[in-house]
C-alpha cells in the first residue's frame, strides 16, 4: 500500500464504545478549595452515578488550560488551590466501576510559565506576548517552535501516564493553537532554515490574495506542518510509556483542519487523518450552541470515511460555564445524529469547583444513553453505503479563496449589517462549499459521504457520483483518478475554480480539467454577480421555473472544447459599471443589496455537460454550494438537486427517500442487513445564532426506497422490533415509516 494512502479501518477499545462523558474542569489559579468535596466516597458516588446513567468512558482533567495539574505533579505546575488529588481519586473510582478513563491535558497554554521561560511564548510582530485560547492572561500562548514540548510537556505526559495508567489521553489546545503568526526567535530561526525566507510581515493577506503572496503561503504551510511534528512527538512520548494508551487531539482530523506533511520547508503531501498518528478522532462542541445537528452530520459523514473511530462532543449548555442545561430533546437528537453518522457520543458536563456534579444532568442523560445502548447492536461494525461522494480537499480547506460573494454584496441581515468598504471580503469559510453540498444533499435525501483526496482515490470505484464543489487546490493524482473514473462511466459535478491550483497553492499553467469537462477556464468574468438562465428543455425536465438565478461569486470565463452548454450566465446591467470600465473600482451600487438586475448581455457559459468516455461531467461556472450554505436560498438548493438529478437519476440511486426537507436519512450496512437511520429536526424561532430543538413535530408517512438487490426477509424498526410493511420489486425494497418522532432506525434484513 502506498504510504500516502489511508489504511484500513482502525480497531481499538474505542471502536465498540458509544457512550462517553467529558467533565470540563478548568479552574482559575485564584480559585481555592478546588476538588475540596472530593474524597474516595464522593468519587465513588460520581462513578456509580455515571455507570447508572450508562456512561462507558469518562474524560477527567489532569492538566487544564491555565497550565495546572489536578494531581500532585513533580513535573508541572500544581493548581495552587487544589485540595485533593482529583485525577487520582476519579481514576480509581471509575476503574472500580469498570469505566474507561480518559485524561484531559491542555498543551500550548499556561499562565504560569512565562516568568521562567519567556522564550517559549508566542510573540507578536510588535513584541507583545498575547493571551492564548480563552485565557484573559497576557503571555499565556506557548509557541510550537519552542523547546516547551520536549522540555516540559513530554515529561508531564509521561508522568501522568506512568502514575495513573489511563486508557486514553485527550490533548487540547494542541493542533488548533499552532497556526498563529509568531515572531519569537525560534520561529525566525526555524522558518529561515526551512524556507530560506524571513518571517513575512503582517497583516495576513485575505483569502483572495493569499495565493499571490508566496512568502505567506510558505509560512502557512510551514507553520501548519508543525502540527504533524507536535502530534508525532506527543503520541510517541505517551506510547513509549504505555503503547496501549489511546491518544487523540481535539479538532484534528476534520475535513476543515487538514495538516500538511513538510520536509525541509517543502510540502510532501496533505495527511489523511489515519496518518496523523492518533488512535481516534474527537472534537469539542464547536461552535458552542451552534447548529449541532448539521455539524454532527457533516463531521460524521467525513470522519466515517477515514477509517478511524471518532466521537464528537455535545454539551449540556449553550456555552461552557452556563451551569444550566439545554432541553434534553436537544441532547437526544444530537446523540441520535452522532450515532446515525457513524460516531460515538461524548456528552460534556462541567463539575463545580469543589468537584461535585449536578445530579439532574444524569437523570436526563440516562434515558438518552439507554436508547444509544439499545441501538448499539446496529451500530457496531456498520459501514456507510457509498453513493454520492463530496470531495473535501484538505488543501482547499486551508488555502486559497473563499466561496460565495467575494465583493459587491451588501449584507444586511440582522446583526450583520456590513456595508462594503473598499472591497470587502464577504466570503465565508473555505469549507462552506463542502458544507453547502452536504446541506443540499441532506435536504434532498441523497446518500452522501465526504472524502479527502487520498481516501476518495481509493474509494472512487464505489461512488455513483462525485461532487467537486469549487475545490480550488487539487492534487495531480486526484485529477488523474477523476479522469479515469469518469472515462469508465463515472458521474462528476464540478464547480467554479476547482483544480486551478495545485495542492501547494501554485497556479497551474493550463486548466487541468479541460479534457474531462470539455471546456477550458480562461479567466474570470469581472462582475461579482451573475444570473444563470438554463435552457427551457432542461428546466422542463428538472421541473424548475424559468427565473434568472442570482449567483454571487467568482465566475470563470469558459471556452467550450466539446461540452454541451446547458445554461448561460447573464451579466448584470451594463450601466452598473461607471464609465463602462469593468473593474471593482467602477462598480456602482444598486439600490439596497447591490444586486444589480440581469442585463441583456451574456457573459458566457454557466453550465455545461460533457460526455467523457463512458461517463458524464457537469460543470457549474459559479459555485452555488457555498452560496447555499451562507444564504440558504431554496432556489439554489432546487437547482443543485436538479443538477444531481440530471447526473444521477432517481432510478439509478441506492436510496430514495420521500420525506420533508428537514429529515435526515443515512444508509448503512451491516453483515446481512441494510440500516436506514431517519432523524427528525425542529429549530425553534430565534433571533440569534443559537439553535434549540425543544419540541419535535412527528412526521408521518416517510417512504424509503433502498436498492437491496434481493427481496428482504423482513423489515423492522429497531431496537423496538416492530415489523414494518414493505414492498419489494426488482432490486428495490420500499418501506413506509408510519411515524417519525426523534429518530428511527429501519433494519432491512436479507
Amino acid at each position, binding site marked *: 500500500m502506498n504510504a500516502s494512502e489511508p489504511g484500513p479501518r482502525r480497531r481499538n477499545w474505542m471502536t465498540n464504545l458509544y457512550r462517553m462523558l467529558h467533565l470540563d474542569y478548568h479552574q*482559575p489559579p485564584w480559585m481555592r478549595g478546588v476538588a475540596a468535596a472530593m474524597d474516595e466516597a464522593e468519587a465513588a458516588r460520581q462513578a456509580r452515578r455515571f455507570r447508572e446513567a450508562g456512561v462507558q468512558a469518562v474524560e477527567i482533567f489532569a492538566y487544564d488550560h491555565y497550565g495546572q495539574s489536578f494531581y500532585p505533579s513533580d513535573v508541572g505546575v500544581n493548581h495552587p488551590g487544589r485540595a485533593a488529588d482529583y485525577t487520582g481519586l476519579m481514576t480509581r473510582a471509575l476503574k472500580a466501576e469498570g469505566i474507561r478513563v480518559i485524561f484531559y491535558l491542555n498543551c500550548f497554554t499556561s499562565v504560569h510559565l512565562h516568568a521562567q521561560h519567556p522564550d517559549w511564548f508566542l510573540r507578536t510582530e510588535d513584541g507583545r506576548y498575547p493571551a492564548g485560547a480563552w485565557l484573559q492572561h497576557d503571555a499565556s500562548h506557548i509557541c510550537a517552535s519552542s523547546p516547551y514540548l520536549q522540555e516540559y510537556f513530554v515529561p508531564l505526559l509521561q508522568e501522568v501516564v506512568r502514575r495513573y495508567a489511563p486508557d486514553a489521553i485527550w490533548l487540547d489546545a494542541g493542533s488548533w493553537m499552532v497556526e498563529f503568526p509568531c515572531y519569537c526567535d525560534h520561529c525566525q530561526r526555524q522558518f529561515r532554515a526551512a524556507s530560506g525566507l524571513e518571517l513575512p510581515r503582517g497583516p495576513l493577506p485575505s483569502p483572495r490574495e493569499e495565493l499571490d503572496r508566496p512568502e505567506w503561503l510558505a509560512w502557512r504551510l510551514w507553520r501548519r506542518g508543525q502540527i504533524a511534528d507536535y502530534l508525532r512527538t506527543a503520541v510517541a512520548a505517551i506510547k513509549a510509556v504505555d503503547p496501549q494508551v489511546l491518544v487523540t487531539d481535539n479538532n484534528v482530523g476534520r475535513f476543515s483542519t487538514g495538516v500538511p506533511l513538510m520536509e525541509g520547508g517543502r510540502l510532501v503531501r496533505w495527511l489523511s487523518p489515519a496518518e496523523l498518528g492518533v488512535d481516534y478522532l474527537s472534537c469539542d462542541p464547536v461552535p458552542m450552541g451552534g447548529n449541532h445537528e448539521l455539524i454532527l452530520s457533516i463531521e460524521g459523514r467525513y470522519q466515517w470515511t477515514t477509517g478511524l473511530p471518532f466521537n464528537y462532543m455535545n454539551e449540556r449548555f449553550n456555552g461552557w460555564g452556563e451551569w444550566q442545561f439545554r432541553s434534553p430533546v436537544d441532547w437526544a437528537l444530537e446523540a441520535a445524529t452522532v450515532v446515525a453518522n457513524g460516531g460515538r457520543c461524548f456528552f460534556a458536563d462541567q463539575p463545580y469547583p469543589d468537584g461535585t456534579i449536578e445530579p439532574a444532568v444524569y437523570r436526563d442523560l440516562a434515558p438518552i444513553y439507554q436508547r444509544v445502548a439499545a441501538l448499539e447492536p446496529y451500530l457496531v461494525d456498520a459501514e456507510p453505503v457509498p453513493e454520492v461522494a463530496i470531495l473535501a480537499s484538505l488543501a482547499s480547506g486551508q488555502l486559497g479563496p473563499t466561496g460565495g460573494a467575494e465583493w459587491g454584496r451588501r449584507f444586511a441581515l440582522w446583526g450583520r449589517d456590513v456595508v462594503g468598504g473598499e472591497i470587502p471580503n464577504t466570503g465565508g469559510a473555505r469549507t462552506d462549499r463542502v458544507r453547502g453540498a452536504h446541506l443540499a444533499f441532506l435536504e434532498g435525501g441523497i446518500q452522501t459521504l465526504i472524502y479527502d483526496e487520498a481516501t476518495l482515490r481509493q474509494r472512487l470505484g464505489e461512488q455513483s457520483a462525485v461532487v467537486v464543489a469549487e475545490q480550488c487546490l487539487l492534487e495531480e493524482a486526484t485529477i488523474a483518478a477523476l479522469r479515469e473514473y469518469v472515462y469508465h462511466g463515472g458521474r462528476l459535478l464540478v464547480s467554479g475554480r476547482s483544480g486551478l491550483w495545485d495542492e501547494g497553492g501554485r497556479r497551474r499553467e493550463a486548466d487541468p480539467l479541460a479534457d474531462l469537462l470539455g471546456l477550458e477556464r480562461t479567466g474570470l468574468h469581472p462582475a461579482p454577480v451573475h*444570473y444563470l438562465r438554463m435552457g427551457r428543455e432542461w428546466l422542463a425536465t428538472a421541473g424548475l421555473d424559468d427565473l434568472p438565478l442570482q449567483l454571487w461569486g467568482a465566475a470563470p470565463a469558459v471556452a467550450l472544447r466539446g461540452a454541451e452548454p446547458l445554461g448561460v450566465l447573464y451579466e448584470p446591467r451594463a450601466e452598473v459599471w461607471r464609465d463602462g470600465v469593468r473593474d471593482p473600482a467602477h462598480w456602482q451600487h444598486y439600490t439596497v443589496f447591490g444586486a444589480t438586475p440581469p442585463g441583456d448581455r451574456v457573459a458566457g457559459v454557466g453550465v455545461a455537460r460533457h460526455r467523457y468516455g463512458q461517463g458524464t461531467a457537469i460543470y457549474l461556472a459559479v459555485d452555488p454550494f457555498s452560496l447555499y450554505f451562507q444564504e440558504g436560498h431554496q432556489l439554489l438548493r432546487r437547482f443543485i438537486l436538479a443538477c444531481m438529478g440530471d447526473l444521477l437519476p432517481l432510478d439509478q440511486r441506492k436510496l430514495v427517500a420521500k420525506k420533508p426537507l428537514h429529515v435526515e436519512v443515512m444508509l448503512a450496512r451491516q453483515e446481512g442487513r441494510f440500516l436506514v437511520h431517519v432523524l427528525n429536526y425542529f429549530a425553534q424561532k430565534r433571533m440569534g445564532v443559537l439553535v434549540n430543538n425543544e419540541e419535535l413535530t412527528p412526521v408521518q408517512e416517510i417512504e424509503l426506497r433502498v436498492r437491496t438487490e434481493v427481496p428482504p426477509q423482513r423489515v423492522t424498526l429497531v431496537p423496538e422490533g416492530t415489523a414494518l410493511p414493505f414492498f419489494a420489486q426488482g432490486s428495490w425494497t420500499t418501506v413506509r415509516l408510519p411515524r417519525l418522532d426523534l429518530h428511527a432506525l429501519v433494519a432491512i434484513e436479507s
Partner: protein
Amino acid sequence: MSWVAECGRQWIYEFHIPPYVRAVGAGFDAEAFADRIVRAHINSVVLFSKCVYGLSYYPTRVGTVHPGLQGDLFGAQLAALQRRDVRVWAYHGTAWDNHAHDANPEWRQVLADGSPATRIAGHEVVWRSVCLNSPYVAERLYPQVAEILERYPVDGMWFDMNVFMDGACFCRFCRQAMAVEGVDPGDLVGHQRFNGRSIERFVQRTTAFVKRLRPEVQVTYNNLTRIGSRVFVPHLDLHEIESLPFFWGFLYLPLYQRYVRTLGVPVRGITGRYHENWGDVGMLKSLAQLQYECATMLANGATCDIGDSLPPDASLDPATFDLIEQTYAWVAEREPWCLGAESVPHVALLAETQVGDYTGIGRPSNHLWGAAKALIEGGFHFDVVDDQADLTPYKAVVLVDHQRLAPELAERLRAYVVAGGRLLATHATSLQDNGEGPDLALGDLFGVRYRGRSPFKVDFLRPTDPRLGRGLPAMDIVVQGGFLDVELLPGARSLARARHPLTDRQFSHAPYAPPDPAGDGWGDAVVLNAVGAGKVAYVAAPLFAAFFEHDYHDHRKLMVNLLDLLLGDDRLLRVGAGPSVEVTLMRQGERLIVHLVNYHAERRGGSQGTIEEIPPRFDIPVRVIAPERLSRVYLAPSGEELAYEREGRFVRLVVPRLDLHQMVVLEQGQREEQP
C-alpha cells in the same frame, strides 16, 4: 370599513432606479401589467411616483424626472389599474432624496460634526438625506404632492423614509427649532426626542396638506412603527409595519402588530418576496414562507402587503407573480374571518414608549423582545400596549423593567390591581430616584422594599414554591444581568430564593462562576403579593432580557408558571401545541376566532432559518373561555364542524390537524348547544 381595511391584499414594489440606468419603463405594457396584478388577487397597489434617489417616474414639472424614463410610467400604471378597480397609492420618498440633497446643501440632514448624513455602500455614498425641518418640505416635497393629487386620481399617498437617518439632525433649521424649544443639541436623548417630535409634526402637517387638497385620499407613512406611535394615529388612515423576517427578525411583526392593533387604526404588515432583503432580485421565497408571514399578519389582526422589485422596464416577473397569486388566493380564502377582527383583551404587555430611534426601524429593548417571545412561545394571547392604554379590560398586565413609569400610570396600576387585576413585573420596574435615593415606586404592590443591587453581574434563582418550579430542573437557575436586592414586606410570599455565584471574577472560559453552594441564598428572587382583590408577582431579576439574549427555555417556563399562577382559571385560551405555534384570539362581530400559526424552519448553514415545509401537527387540544351560547364551532376556511365539550365557562375541543394556519371559529348565537 374603509377601502383601506377591506382591500387587504396589497402589492408594493421597489423601484429605486439609479440615475445611471437608461430606458426606464421602455416598452411598458400597462394593460398586461394590470391584468396580471388582478389575476394575482391583488386589490391594492403602491406605485412609485418618486424614489429615494429623488427621481420621479412621471413627467413632473416641480421635481426631477428620472433621466432614463420613457413616457409617464406612473400615469400609465395608475390608469390601467383603476380601470380594473384596483386601489392605488402613490409611493413618495420624503427625507431620503439624493437629488434634493445634492442641489440644496442647506436642506441636508447633518451630523454633529457638520458632515451630511448619508449611507455608503461599496465605494459610493449611495443614499443622501434632507431634513424634514428644512424648507425642503414646503418648497420641494409639497409641490410634488400637490402635483400628483391634482394630476392623478390616486386613492392614497404612501410616504416612505420619514426618518432622521442617524436619529438626530444638527442642521441649521433643527438647531433653530431646538433653541426655541430649549433643547440642548448636545443632549442626545433630548435631541432625539426633538427629532421624534419633528416627525410627528411632519406627519400632522403632511396629512393635513393632503386632506386639504383631496379629503378622500387616504394617507399612510411607512415605518412609524415603535411603541408610542399612538401619537401618529389621528393623522393616519392605515398603519403599515414593514418587516422582512430575515432582516427584522421573526419576532418583529408579531410584537408590533400586537401593539398597533390596539390603536384603532387599520394595520397592514409588509413583507417581501425576497429571500433576504429588498432588491434581492433573482431570488424568491418559498410559498410556505410567504404564507406563514401572511398567516402571522392575519392572525394578529392585520392585512397583507407583499413587496416586490421591478426591473427598470417595470415588467412583472412571471415566477414572482405565480407565487403571489398562490399566496393571495390562500389569503382571500381566509379574509372573511379576518377582516375587521379585533383582539380580545386578555394579557397586556405594557411597554415603555420608545425614544431615540428615528432611523426607520423601531427596535424594542431586549426586555420587551424577551417578554413578547416568552408570551408567544408560552401560548398566551396578549396585546402589547403603551402607557396611555386603558388597562381595565385586561385580566393581567406584564411590566418589563419599566423604569420610566409616570406617577399617573403608577396610580392607575395601583387602582387596577386593587380592583382585581393581576400584575407581573420584573427587575427595575418603577425603580426611580426622586431625590431620596433609588426606590421602587410600586414596591408596595410588589410586596418588597428596595435595598440595592446585587454586586454580581449574574445571579441564580431556585424556586421554593412547587407551582413556580413546575417542569423545571431542581437546581439553581441562572438569570443573566444582575438581580435587585429586595426585602420582603409583611404579607408578601417568597416563591424563589436568590443565590450568588461563587465569585464575580472571570471563571475559566465560562461567562460566570457557578452558584455558591453555601446557605439557602442571599435574598428573595420571586415574590407573590395580594393587594385588594388583585395579585402581583415580582421577579427581582431581568428575566425577559436574559431569555431573549440567551434563549434559555427554563426562563420561559418560569414566566409561564408565574403568569398561570396569577391568572388561575381566568386564562382565556390554552392550546396544547408547543412553543412554536403562535396563538391569538380575535373577535369579529359575534364570533370568536382562535388562530393557530405553525412554524417550522429548515436546517440552515450560515443563513437564517427558512420555512419551506411545515409538518402537520395533529390532535391539538384547545380550551377557551367562550360565551354561554354558541350556535356553531367549526374550522375555517374549511367549514368542518368541530365537536366540543362545555366545562363551566370553558369550551374544550380538539383541532384535528394544523398545517400552516388554522382558524377555530366559535359563533355566538341563540341555537341550542349540542348535547
